């Protein structure tokens, strides 16, 4: 079961990364090339297998080129949240009691802000746009990483093998670097993998609400926002971008599930 999950997530993410790096391999169309004569063609049209949107742009091409912003959003926001969160968690977990209490109290408080609302607060300050949305989602994710890292470090510090290593006279730095940090990173990797999927979904939600990249960027959330106006005429338009987001998110959930057993 676990091996199947790993294989499926590898397949999904392999295709996504390939599409993000070499979109021209998958489609001959330009995602920005509009063609008013061929607007709103249904699924299965000759030459436009997934149909065309209201400007006559090829839906498949826009999907393929949209992989780049989705992956960028997922990995970028995860990088911000994980890096800052892990460093803060390290500081709390390894620092003195006073620092730990202070930081842990802060994590607790920040954790009580619903993360999408925190991201919206950031966007109010930074303004809309894809980079701003990425930063906002990344910052909103920091508390969960910090809390997890701090908890793991506390747990491993008090575990028997570290205690005996301390008793054997192994220097503090070696203990931290060789034993505590590597063991804490497993659960962090699981969270990071889950977070990539969540960031892709949030990113698409924000652009759906008009807070992400501007038109005519090929982006899945934006494609759905446009499709919303043609639900009764061309319901197919609302199908594939959502499917792409779901697949990308499912890939990251499956990856998290398959590494969970090894990590814990």
């Amino acid at each position, binding site marked *: 079961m676990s091996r199947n999950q790993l294989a499926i997530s590898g397949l999904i993410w392999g295709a996504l990364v390939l599409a993000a790096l070499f979109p021209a391999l998958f489609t001959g169309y330009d995602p920005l090339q509009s063609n008013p004569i061929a607007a709103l063609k249904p699924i299965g049209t000759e030459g436009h297998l997934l149909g065309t949107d209201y400007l006559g742009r090829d839906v498949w091409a826009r999907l393929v080129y949209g992989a780049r912003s989705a992956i960028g959003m997922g990995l970028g926001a995860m990088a911000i949240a994980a890096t800052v969160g892990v460093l803060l968690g390290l500081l709390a977990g390894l620092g003195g009691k006073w620092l730990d209490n202070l930081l842990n*109290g802060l994590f607790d408080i920040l954790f009580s802000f*619903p993360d999408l609302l925190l991201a919206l607060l950031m966007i109010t300050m930074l303004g809309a746009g894809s980079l701003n949305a990425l930063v906002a989602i990344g910052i909103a994710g920091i508390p969960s990483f910090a809390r997890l890292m701090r908890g793991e470090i506390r747990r491993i510090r008090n575990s028997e093998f570290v205690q005996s290593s301390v008793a054997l006279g192994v220097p503090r730095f070696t203990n931290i670097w060789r034993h505590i940090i590597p063991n804490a990173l497993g659960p962090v990797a699981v969270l990071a993998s889950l977070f990539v999927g969540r960031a892709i979904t949030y990113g698409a939600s924000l652009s759906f609400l008009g807070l992400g990249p501007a038109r005519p960027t090929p982006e899945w959330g934006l494609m*759905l926002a446009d499709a919303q106006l043609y639900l009764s005429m061309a319901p197919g338009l*609302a199908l594939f971008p959502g499917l792409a*987001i779901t697949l990308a998110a*499912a890939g990251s959930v499956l990856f998290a599930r398959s590494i969970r057993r090894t990590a814990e």
Partner: protein
Amino acid sequence: MLHSIRTSFLASLLIKVVLVTWVAASITFAVMHATPGTYADLLLSDLAQYGLTAERRAEIIAVYGFDKPLWQQYLLYLSKVFHGDLGMSYALAQPVLDLILAQLTPTLYLAGSAIVLSLGIAILVAIATLRAGRFGRMLSSICEVVVVSIPNFWLGLILLTWLSFRLGWFPASGAGSFASLVLPALTLGIPMAGTFVQILRPELQKEINAPYFITARARGRGFHAVVLRHALLHAILPVLTLSASYFAILISGSVIVENLFGRPGIGRLMLNAVLVKDVPLVSGIVILSAVTFVVINQSVDRLILWIDPRIERH
């Protein structure tokens, strides 16, 4: 004894609420003053369009304390927040608190029906798949991954396309009737049901192997009767523990669902405020939802101790 527990609970709740409010207000203050073009410029230039007189200008500067040093402005702002004054909305020119309270009811209806719906779905699915074979388990675990991964605005779009435009069962937008509540509640509730099932099923699995369950079955009670009568009550506790997280999911979800279905409510208010950079209104909503999160979290912890006193020992 009981008395002291109750006071210590209230004291720790109060401390948490104060801390959360303080941090939220500080972030907000930093946001307001870090935005390019100071808060004062923004406010006064907007008002200038409506013919701001010199006296009125001086009055506004005095009310917000713009003539004082930053740290005094900060203290002034904090004291206002702690007195329940979340400031005036830039865009709507009304007190933030009034605006939020006015939009509370439709959001509560939506959230309430989403919770009821998702609990109903989750209980049905969990019980139905409880004795499933290998194939059934595989199918339900695939469904779990899909439900967790589906973005809820897309789920809403799909429901709209099929149940509203194709079949005409439910209205596409509005908030007047009960029927208009169904699609938004489903959109919000289905992903939540997915998480509920993930918690419920393993708990129920544990219960049906417990000695009391086998005894009840041996006495001739039907499987589903014992599940409904006994096991479900035990299994639902861990779902309750996470109520605060569901609140966070609901409030975030309402931003998307209310805008998708054109319903009034907090989520709609929030998005409109973000779009026009109405910082006091956005931060008012953020502060109040953080406080609500803390209150729910702490109260549920107490509630669970009261329902199941065994937990205290761990």
